[in-house]
């Protein structure tokens, strides 16, 4: 079949239940700003196909995949889709799974690779990407010297959304397995989700806790304030290392990078590696009992005080306002 002109091939991340991952809308949104979005869904349910169309895919290609085999089946499907569609760029989520596919695919098809981008655009010569580096201290642009680029998009970084496509073309892709050696993977022990609380990546409000919370039991205070503000929960590496909360909540250099409207740091010293993941937040609030803590250097509103005194009062005041 014929594909739209200026096709942008988007690999939709599929979660263990077969649904399209939450990164889908931003990926297709980004694609729609530089061309015509064509989605590839590997191992997804009908719901994933529907979600891709709702997020703006004009064409949805599907492939069966094999969840018991890591990465390779998805790369094989992406290669088949790429050859068929011949897009101007390939967009993939900068998730762990997405990065693995992007790396292998770029090598296999000898394409330029740009990772962890926060925006895409198009000029006369093709698709370019924007990056936020060294913890948001610099903004850079990159472009491929030639050919279609493979681009991984930072989760939560792109605001553009595409219009829903009411009747997309859905096509089952025929994939020839490469036979490349692969790891076998067991069931995913999904982290119990608190459905009402927003996801950390891309959240507009984040409340994070650090070692200052003192114990896993007392870390609940962070969650309570997050709920009062309708915010996602983050943490410093020290809090993760101490077992207060799983790694998925770590904000910083080697964790998640967030750029929310509001970031509240509780009992976090503000080490440079933590700041690297949150200093692009619009408004930063910090509560720390050490007035010299470096977090105050980047805070718009800092309170030198004890989190166990201030935060309960804060939650009470916020609840009172709601009434």
């Amino acid at each position: 079949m014929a594909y739209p002109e200026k096709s942008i091939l988007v690999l939709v991340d599929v979660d263990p239940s077969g649904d399209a991952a939450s990164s889908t809308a931003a990926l297709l949104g980004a694609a729609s700003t530089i061309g015509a979005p064509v989605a590839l869904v590997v191992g997804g349910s009908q719901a994933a196909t529907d979600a891709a169309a709702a997020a703006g895919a004009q064409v949805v290609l599907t492939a069966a995949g094999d969840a018991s085999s890591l990465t390779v089946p998805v790369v094989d499907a992406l290669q088949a889709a790429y050859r068929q569609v011949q897009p101007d760029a390939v967009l993939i989520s900068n998730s762990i799974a997405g990065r693995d596919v992007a790396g292998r695919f770029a090598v296999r098809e000898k394409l330029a690779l740009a990772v962890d981008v926060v925006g895409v655009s198009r000029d006369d010569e093709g698709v370019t990407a924007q990056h936020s580096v060294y913890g948001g201290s610099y903004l850079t642009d990159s472009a491929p010297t030639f050919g279609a680029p493979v681009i991984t998009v930072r989760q939560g970084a792109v605001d553009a959304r595409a219009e829903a496509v009411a009747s997309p073309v859905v096509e089952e892709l025929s994939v020839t397995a490469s036979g490349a050696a692969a790891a076998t993977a067991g069931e995913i022990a999904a982290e119990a989700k608190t459905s009402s609380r927003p996801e950390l990546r891309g959240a507009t409000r984040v409340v994070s806790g650090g070692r200052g919370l003192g114990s896993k039991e007392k870390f609940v205070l962070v969650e309570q304030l997050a709920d009062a503000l309708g915010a996602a929960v983050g943490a410093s590496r020290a809090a993760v290392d101490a077992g207060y909360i799983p790694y998925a909540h770590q904000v910083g250099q080697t964790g998640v990078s967030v750029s929310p409207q509001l970031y509240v740091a509780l009992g976090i010293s503000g080490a440079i590696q933590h700041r690297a993941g949150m200093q692009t937040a619009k408004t930063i609030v910090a509560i720390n009992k050490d007035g010299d803590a470096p977090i105050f250097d980047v805070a718009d509103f800092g309170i030198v005080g004890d989190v166990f005194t201030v935060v309960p009062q804060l939650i009470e005041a916020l609840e009172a306002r709601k009434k």
Partner: protein
Amino acid sequence: MKIYVLVKEVPDTYGDRKLDLETGLADRAAGEVVLDEITERALEVALSYADKNPGTEVVSLSMAPASATASVRRSLAIGAGSAVHVVDEELRGADLTLTAEVLAAAIRRGEPDLVITGNLSTDGVGGVIPAMLAEHLGYAQATALSAVEIGEGQLTGTRAGDAGAQDVTVPLPAVISITEALPDARFPNFKGIMAAKKKPLEVLSLADLGVSADPAVAPRTIMTSVAEKPARAAGVKITDEGDAAAQLVEFLAQNRLV
């Protein structure tokens, strides 16, 4: 068992990290450089296996400027048996594609059973090199491992993936990447530092590896512009005297955040 560990020198995240606004490259003179902590942890995974399995060969591999010799030596002092350092003027500003091609060529010469890398580097935060290497080498791959058990002909581990943890089994030869959940590296002691001076450190060029950096050969990603963002300024700082919570609510309300 022969294990290659990929170690990388990076600007120390505790210091000032700068990009040269002319070239877009890391300004190596701006601050201290260190071995990326995650790559030291990768080395520890190999060394703790070698402790229990005599005859294990641990080789550290790095692609870095000539100035990184001290960091490569550090990997020997920590305990690698030998090191390979790829240095070439033409690698200045190498993108991910060229970096992966070079590292893969260096690994191919050694034919290891296992390649261990960090999951993300603190400077590039690309997190794609391990997968790129696996594709180049035709090895199986398992990334983001928070637990690793090296066995006969295969490796098992726990992958800390996007949606949760899962058990994985990888046939060897393989490329794995590990997360910071694994233990910190042992500290190089005096004996290790002295021994490191005598351990083999092979320096290789692009020509030695038969890799071309010619931009016409393969597409590359180039930086087309660099801009520095102004640093954040500190705002209001108050000391809690009983009404800090109320003042914060007021601040949030004024900024339409509640």
